[in-house]
């Protein structure tokens, strides 16, 4: 049913539709409304779950770890500092191959303190071994959340659903919320074969020494990589059932013969699309990357085929290196014949508003003889003392 809903409220509703056994979360801006909405659903009797009001994100992650390990469908959500406080547990959950779902309301990481949206938090835990899926709008966030439960249990991997803080979480828009009957039909009941069970008492989280560790790591890597077709397949199945998809691993839009491409993740894609509408003659291919982990290397090479220039939009940076997605895409395209030239820009860091006019600026920058391979594109360097530029 279509409703005008705030993003966080919609996520809470989506989570409730998946009927998790255990939800544990600690409030943090801008994820707070998700927790509040879930709490209210529980209080109103609309969601029958063990809602564990933990004392920290660290415990939130630990609680869902324990719950999922005990055979419960588990969900948590966090943001920014909370994700970083969880970091240790996040690696642990993935390493133990425990299926569960977490929403990250993407937000910058301090210092300086900043509560606004960018991707620094989920990027900081990109190596944790989770699946990371980015959402362009709240409909995708809802759909991806439900898909994430299915992907998670099919792969024995935890899934992080990344949605931009405030820009999506606090935005009311028209969202089609599936019915519980539809979700029950589409999402199989939770099953975790290695679940703790007194009738088959396994030990989870053993110490693995040098004799076996590389193999265990390899298997984790292989598992995340092999999640690619699962993510795609799941979205196709969703699209068949609900008449709308979330874009599989990635989507491309624009003329087939485009020579310039722009690739981005999350809500920025919408603004870029809006901006491109004003420059229809530019012949630009817009690539929306949904799966950041696993990174769909083949799909990326195909999506960028024929391009001379590829503008890679990052919403977080790795100081001393530059854009993270940009660097990864360079690596993906390395050695590809006729690979496009990469123009890597970080925009909207710490919630800097991204106007649709930025599209024109980005396209102009391709021809800028002074352009650096990477820039914080919307930073006004004149505000900095010369020695800090």
């Amino acid at each position, binding site marked *: 049913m279509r409703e005008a809903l705030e993003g966080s409220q919609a996520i809470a509703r989506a989570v409730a539709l998946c009927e998790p056994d255990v939800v544990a979360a600690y409030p943090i801006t801008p994820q707070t409304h998700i927790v509040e909405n879930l709490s209210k659903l529980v209080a109103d009797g609309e969601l029958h779950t063990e809602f*564990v009001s933990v*004392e920290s994100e660290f415990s939130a992650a630990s609680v869902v*770890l*324990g719950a999922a390990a*005990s*055979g419960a469908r588990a969900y948590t959500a966090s943001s920014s500092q909370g994700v970083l406080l969880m970091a240790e547990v996040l690696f642990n959950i993935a390493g133990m191959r425990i299926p569960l779902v977490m929403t990250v309301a993407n937000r910058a990481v301090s210092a300086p303190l900043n509560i606004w949206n960018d991707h620094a938090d989920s990027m900081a835990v990109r190596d944790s071994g989770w699946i990371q899926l980015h959402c362009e709008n709240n409909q995708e966030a809802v759909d991806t959340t439900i898909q994430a439960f299915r992907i998670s249990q099919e792969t024995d991997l935890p899934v992080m659903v990344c949605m931009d803080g405030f820009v999506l979480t606090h935005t009311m828009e028209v969202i089609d919320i599936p019915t519980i009957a539809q979700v029950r039909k589409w999402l199989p009941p939770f099953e975790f074969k290695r679940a703790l069970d*007194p009738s088959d008492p396994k030990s989870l989280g053993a*110490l693995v020494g040098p004799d076996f560790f590389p193999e265990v790591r390899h298997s984790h890597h292989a598992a995340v990589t092999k999640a690619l077709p699962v993510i795609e397949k799941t979205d196709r199945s969703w699209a068949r059932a609900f008449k709308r998809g979330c874009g599989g691993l990635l989507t491309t839009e624009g003329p087939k013969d485009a020579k310039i491409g722009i690739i981005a993740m999350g809500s920025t894609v919408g603004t870029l699309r809006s901006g491109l509408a004003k420059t229809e003659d530019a012949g630009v291919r817009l690539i929306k990357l949904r799966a950041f982990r696993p990174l769909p290397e083949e799909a990326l090479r195909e999506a960028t085929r024929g391009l001379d220039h590829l503008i890679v939009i990052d919403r977080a940076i790795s100081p001393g290196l530059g854009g993270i997605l940009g660097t990864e895409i360079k690596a993906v395209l390395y050695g590809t014949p006729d690979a496009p030239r990469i123009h890597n820009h970080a925009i909207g860091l710490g919630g800097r508003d991204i106007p649709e006019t930025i599209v024109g600026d980005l396209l102009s920058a391709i021809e800028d003889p002074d352009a650096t391979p990477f820039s914080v594109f919307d930073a006004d360097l004149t505000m900095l003392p010369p020695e800090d530029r």
Partner: protein
Amino acid sequence: MSDNDTDQRAERLAELREKFGRHPVEPKKPFHQGASLRDRQPRFCALESGHRACQGCGEALAARLVMECAGPDVMVANATGCLEVFTTPWPQSAWQVPWVHSLFENSAAVASGMEAAMKARGKNTKILAFGGDGGTYDIGFQALSGMLERYHNILYVCYDNEAYMNTGIQRSSSTPHAASTTTSPAGPERMGKRHLKKDLLGIIAAHHIPYSASASVAYPADLQRKVRYAMGINGPTFLVVHSPCPLGWKHDSHLTIEVARRAVECGLFPIVEMERGELANVMPIREVRPVKDYLALQGRFGHLMKPDDPRAVEELTHLQALADYNITYFNLRGEGEDPADTVGISQVARDRAAGEA
């Protein structure tokens, strides 16, 4: 299998039902049944041989004692530490119950999740959380506090060996005053740890939980009674078990029990029980020993055993004063002989059942 075994097993299950008011899960591999003598031992063995604890490890003993009266319908969340490392070097595990290790500081939280899962799935399996003093007094304290506050049906057991032993004997907030560790070494400028042992039970008591207690490996019967009691409570319970570490305390491996016993007998480790934060019971000390008897067995207090060094004398006196304080504060002297005091509870008798067997 003899009828006798069947009876014992039925009895045990009946006892469990009585204790938990619920039907325990039948383990796939039942206890004290099977081909080998080891399988037929008349106790529930959740922590098998072949673990890699040091010789004379107090923690390994404590964990086995706890598990004996907690299992089999339990699941364990274990903090990082010796217990975790020495029981589960992949591909082996010494555990016979569902067991999960996540991290150093989150066993209480992982256990919370497990308990929530049990509630959500309509199961009664009791959850245990284990941590060492590092994972309980220090880094995992927040998660523990949260667990207690949220009133999870979990028994948290802290195996207190008074330092970070897993990483090689660094001081924790549980390390006793004046003990020497690698991060509180004794030297010309220092007499070991400068600070006091944290009064964890006092803090736990402030959570107003149904039951919290201290116990010692030196008194297995008392320890196991407390575990049984705690297992029967629907709510958060806490047990701190004094577990000597021969390596870290620097005593001979065969002295583990003796050292633990003297800690109790001198008053430095009071054995107490609290109900809703109120002192409900103590193990009286029938014959109080001077703290020196306890300290002298351990190398970590070696620097105090120098009567010519006024600093050593001062710290020794200080420790005696701390013990005296405990004895007064908890009224550990008791009132006459008591079958549950330090002497009474230790007494052995020829086992009639065994004798007739």
